[in-house]
């Protein structure tokens, strides 16, 4: 059985309803997506870049799709009553697939535009026309499926020269009394010399149901812009997520993407970065702490299409129990792009005999005057370091925890938001100590610790 078929059939049946509720722009792309999906197949385990991951299985579950966009009866004022300590953000949230803003959203008014597509299509038609669906590759069936079924999304637009004072925070929450798949979609456009910090966190409030978040994020970084994109996942064993982030960078732009997975069920993160301008800087960071049967698979592709760019990737995994980690990364340097510096690192700790790690770091270089390297290692904690600590009276468990924290510290230190950095150190500490209950460190703390 082809898992895509059930969704295509659903679309064909409910096409009118879906189209009526969406801006014309989304409907235009839908038609292209439908054609793409005609003969498409989801990658199975063993396909290129899917060594450990079977998307057919992930999408094969019988999820509900909220075609009619029925509102869910969730009292959000009840659930959100906490903020990150010392960090005042402009908070938005999406409950399943519907966007809401909070009172704090007012804070950036006059600087940054944050609007659902339904409004943005009216307010900023040119912007939407110019960028929506232009970066994401429809050849990826998950992107095509998102484009086919998505009914709303969020536009974040920072006009030229604006430096957003406060970080924008988007909290994605699954809370429905049924198995469900949602198509989340974001478009982030940051104008010339503008700057924004963005934090997304994924949570699941009802852990007994199966959820699938198939999300597509498109990020445009104009000349001289700076974008920080933090993506934190703290969900449940039944929550699955397939996320594709597409970035295009212009001259002198600086983009940092940091993906953190603390608890989850299944996650596949795709990062696709096109560096089109000189002196652009790209940083991709990733950290995964996985135990139980968590599955985290990251795939990165950075294409250097212009000279004198700099990119740096570091992904770290700590795997325990029956967790499966996978990393596949590719750095491409196109012809006539001298003086590119590109580094890629993937370091992994396997803490249990049943944990599995797959890694595939790749370089494809077509210019000679470059400095590129990648390194990958899978191993365990240093016995000597452990011994050293024990001779100083630190118990074995504590010593292991300390070393594991030190291991992931540099990924956390890459965060350019102090309050978040502190919070992450705290969360990771709790995660390793095994005392991180679901949502405990959640920036929203929807359930009490």
């Amino acid at each position, binding site marked *: 059985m082809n898992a895509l078929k059930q969704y295509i059939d659903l679309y064909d049946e409910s096409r009118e309803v879906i189209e009526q509720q969406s801006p014309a722009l989304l409907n235009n792309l839908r038609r292209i997506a439908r054609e793409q999906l005609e003969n498409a197949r989801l990658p199975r385990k063993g396909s290129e870049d899917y060594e450990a991951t079977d998307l057919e299985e992930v999408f094969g579950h019988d999820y509900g799709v909220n075609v009619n966009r029925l509102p869910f009866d969730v009292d959000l004022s009840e659930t959100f009553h906490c903020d990150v300590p010392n960090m005042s953000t402009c908070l938005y949230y999406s409950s399943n697939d519907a966007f809401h803003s909070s009172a704090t959203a007012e804070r950036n008014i006059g600087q940054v535009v944050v609007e659902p597509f339904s409004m943005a299509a009216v307010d900023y038609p040119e912007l939407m026309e110019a960028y929506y669906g232009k970066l994401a590759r429809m050849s990826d069936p998950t992107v095509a499926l998102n484009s086919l079924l998505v009914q709303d999304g969020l536009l974040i637009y920072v006009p030229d020269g604006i430096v957003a004072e406060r970080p924008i925070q988007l909290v994605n929450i699954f809370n429905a009394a049924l198995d469900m798949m949602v198509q989340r979609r974001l478009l982030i456009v940051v104008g010339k010399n503008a700057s924004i910090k963005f934090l997304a966190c994924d949570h699941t409030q009802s852990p007994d149901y199966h959820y699938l978040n198939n999300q597509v994020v498109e990020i445009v970084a104009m000349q001289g812009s700076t974008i920080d994109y933090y993506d934190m996942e703290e969900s449940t064993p039944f929550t699955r997520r397939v996320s594709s982030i597409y970035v295009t960078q212009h001259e002198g732009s600086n983009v940092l993407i940091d993906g953190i997975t603390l608890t989850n069920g299944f996650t596949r993160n795709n990062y696709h970065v096109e560096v089109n301008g000189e002196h652009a800087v790209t940083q991709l960071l990733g950290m995964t702490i996985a135990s139980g049967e968590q599955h985290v698979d990251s795939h990165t592709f950075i294409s250097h299409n212009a000279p004198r760019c700099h990119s740096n990737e570091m992904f770290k995994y700590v795997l325990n129990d029956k967790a499966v980690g996978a990393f596949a990364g590719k750095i491409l340097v196109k012809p006539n792009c001298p003086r590119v510096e590109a580094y890629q690192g993937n370091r992994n700790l*396997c803490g249990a*005999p049943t944990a*599995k790690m797959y890694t595939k770091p790749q*370089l*494809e270089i077509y210019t*000679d005057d*470059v400095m*590129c390297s990648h*390194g990958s290692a*899978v191993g365990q904690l240093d016995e000597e370091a452990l011994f050293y600590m024990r001779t100083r009276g630190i118990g074995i468990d504590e010593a292991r925890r300390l070393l594991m924290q030190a291991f992931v510290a540099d990924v956390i230190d890459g965060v350019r938001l102090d309050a978040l950095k502190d919070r992450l150190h705290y969360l990771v500490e709790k995660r390793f100590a095994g005392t991180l209950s679901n949502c405990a460190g959640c920036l929203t703390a929807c359930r009490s610790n």
Partner: protein
Amino acid sequence: MKEIEKPEKGNQIIEEAAQAEYKYGFVTDIETEVIPKGLDEDVVRRISALKGEPEWLLEFRLKAYRHWLTLKAPTWGHVHVPEIDYQDISYYAAPRHKKEGEAKEIDPELKKTFDKLGIPLEEQMRLSGMAVDAVMDSVSVKTTYRERLAELGVIFCSISEAVKDYPDLVRKYLGKVVPYTDNFYAALNSAVFSDGSFVYIPKGVRCPMELSTYFRINAAQTGQFERTLIVADDDAYVSYLEGCTAPMRDENQLHAAIVEIVVEDRAEVKYSTVQNWYPGDKDGKGGIYNLVTKRGLCRGDHSKLSWTQVETGSAITWKYPSCVLMGDHSVGEFYSVALTNNWQEADTGTKMIHLGKHSTSTIVSKGISAGHSQNSYRGMVKIAPKATGCRNFTQCDSLLLSDTSGAHTFPVIEVGNDTSVVEHEATTSKINEDQIFYCNQRGISTEDAVGLIVNGYAKEVMAKLPMEFAVEAQKLLSVSLEGAVG
């Protein structure tokens, strides 16, 4: 950083290097028996009949041929193998003996050929101290030192002879490491393989000399499908060398070989290759397609297999000498220098499959790309869940000598337990200008400086080659690289 070399000078040097002559491009005018082009079951039967093979081997070939028909050529490599018309190739070419019954006497033309290549076929050339099996096109023409080796129980002969003289041994091991179902080219080779070497080192014997096979493609419009089988029984040791050349021709020729190695308890095999097939001219015309499957099975505990390769030839190289580390504490090594120039394409690397506990492997790969060439390292390190305490270290460096060449790395790492350690490091860069400047300051020309730096860069691998080969390989590198600086 300051530009040291003016671009014109750099280009000139590259051009010189690109025009460096391929020394082995001559053709021997010798009567050759070639069977008509084309491939079907009859051709397979005919090859088998020409070689006087037993029924079981013909069966093996036919099974492989039927399987091959169901396969498609692989396309995943970072090489552009054009559509090959397998019906337009002759699958068997043998230098014809002048008279019946004089098989043992070697044709003077042939001898001249191998002398020209520097291969000592006559045993009076004892100084070279190497046992050689020389293979021209589809047949082995001469194996030296056989008697002396036989005293120790070492079998070193062509595989066709081995099939006749030691059928049980061949049958026991043939196709066990690389089954005919392995891949497209392995199936093709299993169906039509012509000649190659067979080596058997009995228990406890340390082979006193280097064994060597020299492969030569001479006839036009033929393919070479050699098959080599090396078995090292318990506690045995052998160092085996392989060299290859071909004439300069405008057409492309196919070389699809299989090498199988079995290493038993505590035995050690060292396999070295200097691959110098004709790489095509500077416009990328002609050259050999070198599509090879090489694999060793470290079956015994504490066994060791070491691959060393210097790849400078072939228009297209598609080759992954691999180790299946089945025995506990077994060791696999892979040392490679791959140099590509002009329009050559190389996709090479290794697989280390760790099945035995505490097995270790080391991979050192050095790629050098010049001209318009593409050079890729593709490798896999797999640690099975039960293979505890394994260790792997991989280092693959790429050096780019021109802005039109490409260097790529495609490693795959799979670790299935928590007691193994796997490390992979790779870098890509051009020659450090500071180093060239340093040499220039001391009166060393840029050309010599590049030679020095490249030799230093490849030294780690060259040091693993046996003496006789190291010299040849070093020369080869300097010829192909003469001053190529970008």
